[in-house]
Protein backbone atom coordinates (compact mmCIF):
# COMPACT_ATOMS: atom_id res chain seq x y z
CA UNK A 1 0.00 0.00 0.00
CA UNK A 2 1.03 3.60 -0.53
CA UNK A 3 1.07 6.70 1.63
CA UNK A 4 0.97 9.97 -0.33
CA UNK A 5 2.58 12.99 1.30
CA UNK A 6 0.06 15.80 0.78
CA UNK A 7 2.11 18.25 2.83
CA UNK A 8 5.36 17.23 4.52
CA UNK A 9 5.49 19.56 7.53
CA UNK A 10 8.54 21.77 8.08
CA UNK A 11 10.97 18.97 8.89
CA UNK A 12 9.85 15.34 8.69
CA UNK A 13 12.34 12.51 8.23
CA UNK A 14 12.37 8.72 8.27
CA UNK A 15 14.35 7.48 11.28
CA UNK A 16 15.01 4.23 13.09
CA UNK A 17 17.30 3.30 15.98
CA UNK A 18 20.35 4.62 14.10
CA UNK A 19 23.27 3.52 11.91
CA UNK A 20 26.03 1.89 13.93
CA UNK A 21 29.50 0.73 12.91
CA UNK A 22 30.57 3.56 10.55
CA UNK A 23 31.64 6.29 12.95
CA UNK A 24 35.30 5.49 12.31
CA UNK A 25 34.95 6.82 8.72
CA UNK A 26 33.02 9.87 9.86
CA UNK A 27 29.47 8.65 9.24
CA UNK A 28 27.35 9.42 12.30
CA UNK A 29 24.52 7.33 13.71
CA UNK A 30 21.51 9.63 13.08
CA UNK A 31 18.34 7.86 14.32
CA UNK A 32 15.39 9.10 16.36
CA UNK A 33 15.81 11.93 18.85
CA UNK A 34 13.24 10.57 21.34
CA UNK A 35 13.90 6.88 21.78
CA UNK A 36 11.07 6.39 24.29
CA UNK A 37 8.42 7.76 21.92
CA UNK A 38 9.96 5.70 19.09
CA UNK A 39 9.91 2.42 21.02
CA UNK A 40 6.35 3.09 22.17
CA UNK A 41 5.12 3.84 18.63
CA UNK A 42 6.51 0.58 17.25
CA UNK A 43 5.20 -1.49 20.17
CA UNK A 44 1.71 0.04 19.86
CA UNK A 45 1.31 -1.04 16.22
CA UNK A 46 2.93 -4.43 16.82
CA UNK A 47 6.10 -3.74 14.83
CA UNK A 48 9.33 -5.50 15.49
CA UNK A 49 11.78 -3.57 17.61
CA UNK A 50 13.60 -0.80 15.72
CA UNK A 51 11.29 -0.44 12.68
CA UNK A 52 11.53 2.93 10.85
CA UNK A 53 9.04 5.68 11.77
CA UNK A 54 8.41 9.28 10.72
CA UNK A 55 9.90 11.92 13.01
CA UNK A 56 8.22 15.34 12.73
CA UNK A 57 9.69 18.51 14.19
CA UNK A 58 7.36 21.22 15.53
CA UNK A 59 4.61 20.33 13.06
CA UNK A 60 3.61 17.14 11.28
CA UNK A 61 2.62 16.11 7.75
CA UNK A 62 -0.68 15.44 5.99
CA UNK A 63 -0.75 11.95 4.52
CA UNK A 64 -3.31 10.34 2.20
CA UNK A 65 -3.68 6.56 2.67
CA UNK A 66 -4.64 4.47 -0.38
CA UNK A 67 -5.54 1.43 1.75
CA UNK A 68 -6.57 0.61 5.31
CA UNK A 69 -3.68 0.79 7.73
CA UNK A 70 -2.97 0.55 11.48
CA UNK A 71 -0.99 3.50 12.87
CA UNK A 72 0.03 5.11 16.15
CA UNK A 73 1.24 8.61 17.02
CA UNK A 74 3.54 9.28 19.96
CA UNK A 75 5.91 11.96 21.20
CA UNK A 76 4.80 15.60 20.92
CA UNK A 77 1.03 16.07 20.88
CA UNK A 78 0.44 17.37 17.37
CA UNK A 79 -3.36 17.34 17.58
CA UNK A 80 -3.53 14.54 15.02
CA UNK A 81 -6.77 14.19 13.06
CA UNK A 82 -8.27 11.91 10.42
CA UNK A 83 -10.52 14.14 8.37
CA UNK A 84 -11.79 16.33 11.21
CA UNK A 85 -11.91 13.57 13.79
CA UNK A 86 -9.23 13.81 16.50
CA UNK A 87 -7.03 10.77 17.06
CA UNK A 88 -5.88 9.71 20.51
CA UNK A 89 -2.11 9.48 20.90
CA UNK A 90 -0.38 6.43 22.39
CA UNK A 91 -2.93 3.89 21.17
CA UNK A 92 -3.24 2.10 17.83
CA UNK A 93 -5.91 3.28 15.36
CA UNK A 94 -7.10 2.46 11.85
CA UNK A 95 -6.82 4.85 8.94
CA UNK A 96 -9.26 3.81 6.19
CA UNK A 97 -8.58 3.80 2.48
CA UNK A 98 -8.92 7.33 1.04
CA UNK A 99 -8.61 9.09 4.41
CA UNK A 100 -6.06 11.79 5.19
CA UNK A 101 -4.15 11.81 8.46
CA UNK A 102 -2.98 15.27 9.56
CA UNK A 103 -0.50 16.02 12.31
CA UNK A 104 -0.60 19.70 13.28
CA UNK A 105 1.50 22.03 15.38
CA UNK A 106 3.18 20.57 18.49
CA UNK A 107 1.02 21.60 21.46
CA UNK A 108 3.28 19.90 23.98
CA UNK A 109 6.78 18.72 23.23
CA UNK A 110 8.68 19.33 19.99
CA UNK A 111 8.95 16.02 18.07
CA UNK A 112 6.08 13.78 17.08
CA UNK A 113 6.32 10.22 15.73
CA UNK A 114 4.13 8.24 13.36
CA UNK A 115 4.50 4.46 13.19
CA UNK A 116 2.61 2.38 10.64
CA UNK A 117 2.15 -1.34 11.02
CA UNK A 118 4.89 -3.10 9.02
CA UNK A 119 7.10 -0.03 8.86
CA UNK A 120 8.20 2.05 5.85
CA UNK A 121 9.75 0.12 2.97
CA UNK A 122 12.73 2.32 2.18
CA UNK A 123 16.06 0.63 1.45
CA UNK A 124 18.41 -0.07 4.32
CA UNK A 125 21.69 1.77 3.79
CA UNK A 126 24.59 0.43 5.86
CA UNK A 127 22.20 -1.42 8.13
CA UNK A 128 19.75 1.42 8.83
CA UNK A 129 16.84 3.31 7.29
CA UNK A 130 17.62 6.51 9.20
CA UNK A 131 17.91 9.70 7.18
CA UNK A 132 21.40 11.21 7.45
CA UNK A 133 21.14 14.68 5.90
CA UNK A 134 24.84 15.46 6.10
CA UNK A 135 25.82 12.30 4.23
CA UNK A 136 22.69 12.47 2.01
CA UNK A 137 21.84 8.84 2.70
CA UNK A 138 19.05 6.75 4.22
CA UNK A 139 15.32 7.53 4.36
CA UNK A 140 14.17 9.03 1.06
CA UNK A 141 17.30 10.11 -0.84
CA UNK A 142 18.82 11.22 2.44
CA UNK A 143 16.49 14.23 2.72
CA UNK A 144 13.40 15.37 4.62
CA UNK A 145 10.02 14.42 3.12
CA UNK A 146 8.55 16.71 0.49
CA UNK A 147 5.14 17.15 -1.07
CA UNK A 148 4.36 14.38 -3.54
CA UNK A 149 6.60 11.75 -1.94
CA UNK A 150 5.06 8.29 -1.89
CA UNK A 151 5.94 5.90 0.94
CA UNK A 152 5.39 2.17 0.58
CA UNK A 153 4.10 0.07 3.49
CA UNK A 154 3.65 -3.74 3.59
CA UNK A 155 0.10 -4.91 2.89
CA UNK A 156 -0.58 -7.44 5.62
CA UNK A 157 -2.37 -6.40 8.85
CA UNK A 158 -2.74 -7.98 12.24
CA UNK A 159 -5.25 -6.32 14.54
CA UNK A 160 -4.55 -8.40 17.67
CA UNK A 161 -2.66 -5.43 19.08
CA UNK A 162 -5.56 -2.95 18.95
CA UNK A 163 -6.00 -2.96 22.74
CA UNK A 164 -2.41 -1.83 23.42
CA UNK A 165 -2.08 1.44 25.37
CA UNK A 166 0.76 3.55 26.76
CA UNK A 167 0.75 6.27 29.35
CA UNK A 168 0.78 9.64 27.57
CA UNK A 169 3.87 11.53 28.74
CA UNK A 170 3.73 15.17 29.80
CA UNK A 171 6.57 17.13 28.23
CA UNK A 172 7.90 19.86 30.48
CA UNK A 173 9.67 22.81 28.87
CA UNK A 174 11.71 23.16 32.03
CA UNK A 175 13.81 20.05 32.58
CA UNK A 176 16.74 18.81 34.64
CA UNK A 177 18.94 16.20 32.99
CA UNK A 178 21.60 13.97 34.52
CA UNK A 179 25.20 14.38 33.43
CA UNK A 180 28.36 12.33 33.90
CA UNK A 181 31.22 14.84 34.04
CA UNK A 182 34.05 14.37 31.53
CA UNK A 183 35.82 13.32 29.36
CA UNK A 184 37.46 16.78 29.45
CA UNK A 185 36.15 18.18 32.75
CA UNK A 186 39.72 19.16 33.68
CA UNK A 187 39.67 21.84 30.95
CA UNK A 188 37.17 23.78 33.09
CA UNK A 189 37.66 25.68 36.32
CA UNK A 190 35.82 24.69 39.47
CA UNK A 191 33.75 27.81 38.94
CA UNK A 192 33.00 26.73 35.36
CA UNK A 193 31.72 23.31 36.45
CA UNK A 194 29.70 24.89 39.23
CA UNK A 195 28.19 27.32 36.68
CA UNK A 196 27.07 24.44 34.46
CA UNK A 197 25.52 22.55 37.39
CA UNK A 198 23.78 25.51 39.03
CA UNK A 199 22.67 27.87 36.28
CA UNK A 200 19.65 27.53 33.99
CA UNK A 201 20.27 27.43 30.24
CA UNK A 202 17.83 28.40 27.50
CA UNK A 203 17.44 26.39 24.27
CA UNK A 204 18.45 28.63 21.35
CA UNK A 205 16.41 28.74 18.14
CA UNK A 206 19.52 27.54 16.27
CA UNK A 207 19.03 24.10 17.83
CA UNK A 208 18.31 21.15 15.55
CA UNK A 209 18.83 17.40 15.27
CA UNK A 210 22.58 17.97 15.37
CA UNK A 211 22.66 19.73 18.69
CA UNK A 212 20.87 21.79 21.29
CA UNK A 213 22.63 25.13 21.43
CA UNK A 214 22.16 26.65 24.86
CA UNK A 215 22.31 30.27 25.99
CA UNK A 216 23.23 31.22 29.53
CA UNK A 217 26.12 32.07 31.83
CA UNK A 218 29.41 31.32 30.08
CA UNK A 219 31.23 28.24 31.40
CA UNK A 220 34.74 29.23 32.48
CA UNK A 221 37.66 27.24 31.12
CA UNK A 222 41.18 26.96 32.51
CA UNK A 223 42.77 28.14 29.27
CA UNK A 224 40.34 27.86 26.37
CA UNK A 225 38.25 24.97 25.11
CA UNK A 226 40.32 23.88 22.09
CA UNK A 227 41.46 20.27 22.35
CA UNK A 228 43.12 17.83 19.99
CA UNK A 229 39.97 16.37 18.41
CA UNK A 230 38.51 13.25 19.91
CA UNK A 231 35.30 11.23 19.81
CA UNK A 232 31.81 12.63 20.38
CA UNK A 233 28.91 10.55 21.60
CA UNK A 234 25.17 11.13 22.00
CA UNK A 235 24.71 13.74 24.74
CA UNK A 236 28.28 15.11 24.74
CA UNK A 237 28.22 18.65 26.10
CA UNK A 238 30.84 20.65 24.25
CA UNK A 239 31.66 24.18 25.26
CA UNK A 240 32.76 26.50 22.46
CA UNK A 241 35.28 29.25 23.15
CA UNK A 242 32.41 31.69 23.77
CA UNK A 243 31.60 29.55 26.84
CA UNK A 244 28.15 28.43 25.69
CA UNK A 245 27.32 24.71 25.95
CA UNK A 246 26.01 22.64 23.03
CA UNK A 247 24.46 19.21 23.75
CA UNK A 248 25.14 16.95 20.77
CA UNK A 249 22.14 14.99 19.57
CA UNK A 250 21.19 12.38 16.92
CA UNK A 251 22.79 14.08 13.87
CA UNK A 252 25.97 15.00 15.75
CA UNK A 253 29.42 14.86 14.16
CA UNK A 254 31.52 11.80 15.16
CA UNK A 255 34.54 13.75 16.45
CA UNK A 256 35.26 17.33 17.40
CA UNK A 257 37.77 19.77 18.80
CA UNK A 258 35.94 21.57 21.60
CA UNK A 259 36.39 20.32 25.17
CA UNK A 260 33.46 18.31 26.50
CA UNK A 261 32.62 19.13 30.09
CA UNK A 262 30.17 16.25 30.47
CA UNK A 263 27.79 13.84 28.79
CA UNK A 264 24.01 13.76 29.26
CA UNK A 265 22.78 10.27 30.27
CA UNK A 266 21.23 8.36 27.38
CA UNK A 267 17.82 8.03 29.06
CA UNK A 268 17.52 11.80 29.59
CA UNK A 269 18.14 12.58 25.88
CA UNK A 270 14.40 12.14 25.09
CA UNK A 271 13.62 14.98 27.53
CA UNK A 272 15.92 17.25 25.53
CA UNK A 273 14.46 16.02 22.23
CA UNK A 274 11.07 17.40 23.27
CA UNK A 275 12.29 20.92 24.12
CA UNK A 276 11.28 23.84 21.93
CA UNK A 277 13.46 26.94 21.48
CA UNK A 278 13.08 29.06 24.64
CA UNK A 279 12.74 26.04 26.95
CA UNK A 280 15.05 25.83 29.95
CA UNK A 281 17.54 23.14 30.95
CA UNK A 282 19.43 22.44 34.15
CA UNK A 283 22.17 19.86 34.63
CA UNK A 284 22.71 17.54 37.61
CA UNK A 285 25.90 15.52 38.03
CA UNK A 286 25.86 11.77 38.66
CA UNK A 287 28.75 9.29 38.74
CA UNK A 288 29.08 6.75 35.94
CA UNK A 289 28.14 3.99 38.42
CA UNK A 290 24.92 5.82 39.37
CA UNK A 291 24.23 6.56 35.70
CA UNK A 292 24.51 2.89 34.75
CA UNK A 293 22.35 1.77 37.70
CA UNK A 294 19.60 4.12 36.55
CA UNK A 295 20.05 2.88 32.96
CA UNK A 296 19.30 -0.67 34.08
CA UNK A 297 16.12 0.41 35.86
CA UNK A 298 14.98 2.57 32.94
CA UNK A 299 15.45 0.02 30.21
CA UNK A 300 12.31 -1.89 31.24
CA UNK A 301 10.18 1.14 32.00
CA UNK A 302 10.35 2.59 28.56
CA UNK A 303 6.69 2.49 27.64
CA UNK A 304 4.74 -0.24 29.44
Amino acid sequence: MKLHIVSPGPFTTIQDGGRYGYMASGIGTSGVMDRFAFEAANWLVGNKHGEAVLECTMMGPSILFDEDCICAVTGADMGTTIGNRPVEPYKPFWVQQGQTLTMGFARSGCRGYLAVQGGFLVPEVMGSRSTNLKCALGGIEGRPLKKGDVLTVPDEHHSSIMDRRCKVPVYSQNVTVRVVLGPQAEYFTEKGISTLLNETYVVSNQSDRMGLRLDGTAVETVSGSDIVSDGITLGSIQVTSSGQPIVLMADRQTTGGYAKIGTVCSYDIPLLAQLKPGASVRFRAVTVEQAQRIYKLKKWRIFR
Partner: protein
Amino acid sequence: MDAIKFCPAGDCALIAEFGNRIDEDINSKVHALARWISERKIPGVIETVPTFRSLMVIYDPWRISYRRLTGILKKCSFESRDTQNTQKEIIEVPCWYSGPDMDDMEKLTGLSREEIISIHSGTDYKIYMMGFLPGFVYLGGLDKRIHAPRLSTPRTRIEPGSVGIGGSQTGVYPVASPGGWRILGYTPLKFYDPEKENPILCRAGQYIRFVPISREEYERAVTR
Protein backbone atom coordinates in the same frame (compact mmCIF):
# COMPACT_ATOMS: atom_id res chain seq x y z
CA MET B 1 50.48 -1.47 28.19
CA ASP B 2 50.71 1.42 30.63
CA ALA B 3 49.63 5.03 30.71
CA ILE B 4 46.16 4.64 29.22
CA LYS B 5 43.82 7.07 30.96
CA PHE B 6 40.17 5.99 31.06
CA CYS B 7 37.28 8.40 31.40
CA PRO B 8 33.53 7.87 31.03
CA ALA B 9 31.72 9.67 28.21
CA GLY B 10 28.28 9.28 29.75
CA ASP B 11 26.57 5.97 30.53
CA CYS B 12 27.13 4.32 27.12
CA ALA B 13 30.67 5.29 26.05
CA LEU B 14 34.18 5.71 27.38
CA ILE B 15 37.40 7.32 26.23
CA ALA B 16 40.76 5.55 26.42
CA GLU B 17 43.30 8.33 26.18
CA PHE B 18 46.96 7.83 25.26
CA GLY B 19 48.05 11.48 25.34
CA ASN B 20 46.86 14.94 24.38
CA ARG B 21 49.17 15.64 21.46
CA ILE B 22 49.19 14.94 17.74
CA ASP B 23 51.94 12.38 17.60
CA GLU B 24 52.58 9.47 15.29
CA ASP B 25 53.48 7.06 18.10
CA ILE B 26 50.42 7.95 20.21
CA ASN B 27 48.18 7.61 17.14
CA SER B 28 49.51 4.17 16.25
CA LYS B 29 48.75 2.97 19.81
CA VAL B 30 45.17 4.20 19.42
CA HIS B 31 44.72 2.16 16.23
CA ALA B 32 46.39 -0.84 17.89
CA LEU B 33 43.88 -0.76 20.78
CA ALA B 34 41.02 -0.49 18.28
CA ARG B 35 42.32 -3.62 16.53
CA TRP B 36 42.81 -5.41 19.88
CA ILE B 37 39.19 -4.72 20.84
CA SER B 38 37.75 -5.76 17.48
CA GLU B 39 39.74 -9.02 17.50
CA ARG B 40 38.48 -9.89 20.98
CA LYS B 41 34.79 -9.20 20.28
CA ILE B 42 34.08 -8.12 23.88
CA PRO B 43 30.37 -8.70 24.59
CA GLY B 44 28.53 -5.39 24.88
CA VAL B 45 31.03 -3.35 22.83
CA ILE B 46 29.19 -1.77 19.88
CA GLU B 47 31.87 0.17 18.01
CA THR B 48 35.06 2.18 18.48
CA VAL B 49 36.14 5.57 17.13
CA PRO B 50 39.91 6.02 16.83
CA THR B 51 41.16 9.61 16.97
CA PHE B 52 44.61 11.25 17.10
CA ARG B 53 45.23 10.40 20.70
CA SER B 54 42.29 8.51 22.13
CA LEU B 55 39.85 5.73 21.39
CA MET B 56 36.15 6.17 22.05
CA VAL B 57 34.41 2.89 22.86
CA ILE B 58 30.62 2.76 22.50
CA TYR B 59 29.04 -0.01 24.59
CA ASP B 60 25.79 -1.23 26.08
CA PRO B 61 25.81 -0.78 29.88
CA TRP B 62 23.08 -3.41 30.13
CA ARG B 63 25.68 -5.98 29.03
CA ILE B 64 28.91 -4.57 30.45
CA SER B 65 29.59 -1.91 33.07
CA TYR B 66 32.17 0.88 32.89
CA ARG B 67 34.10 -0.75 35.68
CA ARG B 68 34.22 -4.17 34.02
CA LEU B 69 35.07 -2.84 30.57
CA THR B 70 37.92 -0.65 31.81
CA GLY B 71 39.14 -3.67 33.81
CA ILE B 72 39.38 -5.68 30.59
CA LEU B 73 40.97 -2.84 28.60
CA LYS B 74 43.60 -2.27 31.29
CA LYS B 75 44.84 -5.81 30.70
CA CYS B 76 45.28 -5.33 26.97
CA SER B 77 48.69 -5.87 25.48
CA PHE B 78 49.73 -5.28 21.93
CA GLU B 79 52.47 -3.93 19.78
CA SER B 80 51.67 -0.91 17.70
CA ARG B 81 52.19 -1.68 14.05
CA ASP B 82 55.26 -0.09 12.51
CA THR B 83 54.13 2.11 9.65
CA GLN B 84 57.47 3.83 9.06
CA ASN B 85 58.74 1.47 6.38
CA THR B 86 55.72 1.44 4.12
CA GLN B 87 55.78 3.62 1.01
CA LYS B 88 54.11 7.03 1.33
CA GLU B 89 50.87 7.16 -0.62
CA ILE B 90 50.29 10.81 -1.52
CA ILE B 91 47.00 12.35 -2.65
CA GLU B 92 47.45 15.73 -4.36
CA VAL B 93 44.74 18.20 -3.37
CA PRO B 94 44.53 21.32 -5.58
CA CYS B 95 43.63 24.40 -3.54
CA TRP B 96 42.57 27.92 -4.59
CA TYR B 97 43.77 30.00 -1.62
CA SER B 98 41.07 32.67 -1.47
CA GLY B 99 39.23 31.89 1.76
CA PRO B 100 37.42 34.49 3.90
CA ASP B 101 39.86 34.08 6.81
CA MET B 102 43.07 34.79 4.85
CA ASP B 103 43.19 38.41 6.10
CA ASP B 104 42.77 37.24 9.71
CA MET B 105 45.44 34.59 9.17
CA GLU B 106 47.90 37.30 8.06
CA LYS B 107 47.17 39.26 11.25
CA LEU B 108 47.28 36.19 13.53
CA THR B 109 50.54 34.81 12.11
CA GLY B 110 52.32 38.01 11.11
CA LEU B 111 53.06 36.35 7.77
CA SER B 112 52.16 37.47 4.26
CA ARG B 113 49.53 35.65 2.24
CA GLU B 114 52.23 34.21 -0.03
CA GLU B 115 54.21 32.91 2.95
CA ILE B 116 51.11 31.27 4.46
CA ILE B 117 50.33 29.56 1.14
CA SER B 118 53.88 28.36 0.68
CA ILE B 119 54.07 26.98 4.23
CA HIS B 120 50.63 25.33 4.02
CA SER B 121 51.34 23.67 0.66
CA GLY B 122 54.94 22.80 1.52
CA THR B 123 54.27 19.78 3.76
CA ASP B 124 52.92 16.27 3.18
CA TYR B 125 50.31 15.70 5.86
CA LYS B 126 49.67 12.25 7.27
CA ILE B 127 46.01 11.25 7.69
CA TYR B 128 45.81 10.27 11.37
CA MET B 129 42.08 9.75 11.60
CA MET B 130 38.75 10.21 9.86
CA GLY B 131 35.76 11.68 11.56
CA PHE B 132 33.59 14.69 12.35
CA LEU B 133 31.96 14.45 8.91
CA PRO B 134 31.85 11.71 6.25
CA GLY B 135 35.29 11.61 4.65
CA PHE B 136 36.79 14.33 6.82
CA VAL B 137 40.56 13.82 7.19
CA TYR B 138 42.43 14.81 10.32
CA LEU B 139 45.99 15.60 9.34
CA GLY B 140 49.19 15.77 11.33
CA GLY B 141 52.20 17.95 10.69
CA LEU B 142 50.88 21.52 10.35
CA ASP B 143 53.75 24.04 10.63
CA LYS B 144 53.64 25.88 14.00
CA ARG B 145 53.94 29.27 12.24
CA ILE B 146 50.43 28.92 10.82
CA HIS B 147 48.63 27.46 13.85
CA ALA B 148 45.50 29.58 14.54
CA PRO B 149 42.71 29.33 17.13
CA ARG B 150 39.24 28.28 15.99
CA LEU B 151 36.58 30.96 15.57
CA SER B 152 35.01 31.89 18.91
CA THR B 153 31.57 31.26 17.41
CA PRO B 154 31.42 28.56 14.73
CA ARG B 155 29.94 29.51 11.34
CA THR B 156 26.54 27.95 10.75
CA ARG B 157 27.50 26.87 7.20
CA ILE B 158 30.82 26.11 5.56
CA GLU B 159 30.80 25.00 1.91
CA PRO B 160 32.09 21.55 0.82
CA GLY B 161 35.67 21.72 -0.43
CA SER B 162 36.67 24.45 2.05
CA VAL B 163 40.27 24.08 3.23
CA GLY B 164 40.85 25.33 6.76
CA ILE B 165 42.97 25.54 9.87
CA GLY B 166 41.72 24.89 13.41
CA GLY B 167 44.32 25.15 16.17
CA SER B 168 47.21 22.90 15.20
CA GLN B 169 45.22 21.06 12.53
CA THR B 170 44.44 21.53 8.86
CA GLY B 171 41.88 19.77 6.69
CA VAL B 172 39.07 19.93 4.15
CA TYR B 173 35.29 20.13 4.73
CA PRO B 174 33.86 17.21 2.67
CA VAL B 175 30.22 18.36 2.95
CA ALA B 176 28.43 21.56 3.94
CA SER B 177 28.54 21.88 7.72
CA PRO B 178 28.67 24.28 10.61
CA GLY B 179 32.26 24.65 11.75
CA GLY B 180 34.79 26.76 13.61
CA TRP B 181 37.89 26.42 11.44
CA ARG B 182 39.48 29.39 9.65
CA ILE B 183 38.97 28.98 5.93
CA LEU B 184 42.07 29.42 3.74
CA GLY B 185 40.71 28.31 0.38
CA TYR B 186 38.78 25.81 -1.69
CA THR B 187 39.51 22.54 -3.47
CA PRO B 188 37.47 21.18 -6.38
CA LEU B 189 38.25 17.62 -5.21
CA LYS B 190 35.34 15.71 -3.60
CA PHE B 191 36.33 14.07 -0.32
CA TYR B 192 32.86 12.56 0.06
CA ASP B 193 30.70 11.64 -2.91
CA PRO B 194 27.57 9.61 -2.10
CA GLU B 195 27.12 8.92 -5.86
CA LYS B 196 30.30 6.86 -5.94
CA GLU B 197 30.49 3.20 -5.00
CA ASN B 198 33.19 4.06 -2.49
CA PRO B 199 32.01 7.46 -1.25
CA ILE B 200 35.08 8.22 0.90
CA LEU B 201 38.17 9.52 -1.01
CA CYS B 202 40.90 8.84 1.56
CA ARG B 203 41.77 6.53 4.40
CA ALA B 204 43.89 6.87 7.52
CA GLY B 205 47.59 6.29 6.84
CA GLN B 206 47.72 8.04 3.44
CA TYR B 207 49.30 11.49 2.94
CA ILE B 208 47.84 14.71 1.55
CA ARG B 209 49.73 17.40 -0.37
CA PHE B 210 48.02 20.73 -1.10
CA VAL B 211 48.86 22.21 -4.53
CA PRO B 212 48.06 25.94 -5.04
CA ILE B 213 45.92 26.68 -8.11
CA SER B 214 44.50 29.84 -9.66
CA ARG B 215 40.86 30.90 -9.73
CA GLU B 216 40.69 29.91 -13.42
CA GLU B 217 42.03 26.44 -12.71
CA TYR B 218 39.59 26.06 -9.83
CA GLU B 219 36.60 27.09 -11.92
CA ARG B 220 37.64 24.84 -14.80
CA ALA B 221 37.92 21.88 -12.41
CA VAL B 222 34.55 22.58 -10.77
CA THR B 223 32.60 22.90 -14.03
CA ARG B 224 34.25 19.85 -15.58
